[in-house]
C-alpha cells in the first residue's frame, strides 16, 4: 500500500494503516529524540506522544509529500516542549537547565562528546538530523521550522564553536 493510501485509510480511522505508516518513521524519530533528550526512556515516551499528535494532526499532512520530515517535525517539537517542562526546569538556587551553556569553562578536559551534550537542544537536533539521519539541509530546515539559509549558517556556527573548543583541548602539553 502506498503512502497516500495509508494516509487516507488512517484519516478514515484505520489504526493498522497508521501503524504501517509510522513504522519506518519510529526509529528515526527515536534517534532524534535520543539526541535531543539524552535519555532513552524519555525518547521512547516522546516518540509515543509524537505518534499520538501525528494521528490527531494527520489532516494537516500534505498528500503526496514525504511523511518522514513531517513526523520528525512532530518529534522535534515535542522534545522541545519537554525541555521546557518541569523535569528540565531550573533547580532552585542553581541554574541547571541545559541549554546555552558556555563551553569555555570545560576547557582543559573537554572532548567532543562533552561538547555535543552541552550544546543547546536545537543545535544538537540539527547535528542529529544532518549527520546521523543524513537529511539535506533544506529538509533539516523544514523539520526545525527555519529557513535553509538559517540552517546552513547555524550548522556553520555549531561546527566553528566545536572546532574552537577542541582546539583548546588539543594543544600539546
Amino acid at each position, binding site marked *: 500500500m502506498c503512502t497516500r493510501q495509508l494516509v487516507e485509510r488512517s484519516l478514515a480511522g484505520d489504526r493498522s494503516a497508521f501503524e504501517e505508516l509510522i513504522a519506518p518513521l*519510529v526509529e528515526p524519530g527515536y534517534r532524534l529524540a535520543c539526541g535531543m533528550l539524552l535519555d*532513552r526512556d524519555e525518547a521512547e*515516551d516522546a516518540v*509515543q506522544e509524537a505518534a499520538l499528535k501525528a494521528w490527531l494532526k494527520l489532516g494537516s499532512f500534505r498528500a503526496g509529500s514525504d511523511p518522514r520530515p513531517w513526523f520528525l517535525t512532530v518529534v522535534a517539537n515535542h522534545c522541545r516542549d519537554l525541555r521546557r517542562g*518541569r523535569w*528540565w526546569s531550573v533547580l532552585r538556587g542553581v541554574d541547571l*537547565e541545559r541549554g546555552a551553556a558556555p563551553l569555555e569553562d570545560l576547557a582543559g578536559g573537554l572532548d567532543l562528546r562533552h561538547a*555535543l551534550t552541552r550544546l543547546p537542544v536545537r543545535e544538537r537536533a540539527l547535528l542529529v538530523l544532518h549527520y*546521523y539521519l543524513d537529511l539535506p539541509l533544506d529538509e533539516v530546515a523544514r523539520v526545525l521550522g527555519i529557513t535553509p539559509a538559517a540552517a546552513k549558517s547555524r550548522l556553520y556556527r555549531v561546527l566553528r564553536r566545536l572546532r574552537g573548543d577542541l582546539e583548546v583541548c588539543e594543544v600539546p602539553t
Partner: protein
Amino acid sequence: MSERVRREVRELVEGFGAPRPGLAARAAAGLPDRPGRTAPRWAAVAAAALAVTAGLVLWTARGVPHQPAEGTMDPAQARAAVRAAVPASRPVLLPAAMAPTWSAEVTASAGGFRVRYTDPNDATRSVTVATGAADLGGFATLSYPAFHGDRASIYATKDQTLILVWQQAGVSYQLVTTGLGDAEFWQIANSLG
C-alpha cells in the same frame, strides 16, 4: 572536522541503544478514535478529552499506573514515595547517607523525580537529587569521575555549590549540594542507590 562530528554524533545517538521492539505498535495501540471530517463542533471537545486520556494511557503503558508524589517528609518517607511514583523500569537513585533529621521536599511522577533535602539546623546546607539534564554554565569542572561507569559524568563547582551529572541506564541524573564540603559530597554520592 565534519567527519569527526558525524562519528561522534553517531556514537552519541547509538549509545542509547535501539528502541524496544514494538514501539510503533504500542504507539498505535493507544490512539483514540478519529472524529469524522464533518463531525459537529462538540466532537472537537470530545476528541481533545480523548487525546488527554490517551496520553495518560500511553504514559503508563509500560506498567501499572503510578501515583505521583509531592510534599515535604523525612528521607525514609521520601524514598518510599519516589519508589511508588517512578516505574520499576527506571532506576531510582537516592542517598542512603542522609541524616534522618533532614527534611525532604519531593516531586515525583512516572516521568522522573526531584528530592531536595535540607538541614533543619542550617538552611544553607542542602542536597538535591533529580532526574533530567543540567546546564553547567558558569560551573568550573573539577573532574570527570566516571561515576557509576559513565565516562561522560562531570563533577563541577560554582560558589558554594557542587554538582555531579551523569547518565545511568539511559537516564540523566544530577546531584547538587550547597554548603557541603568535598568529602561530604562524595559520602552522599557514594551512598546513592
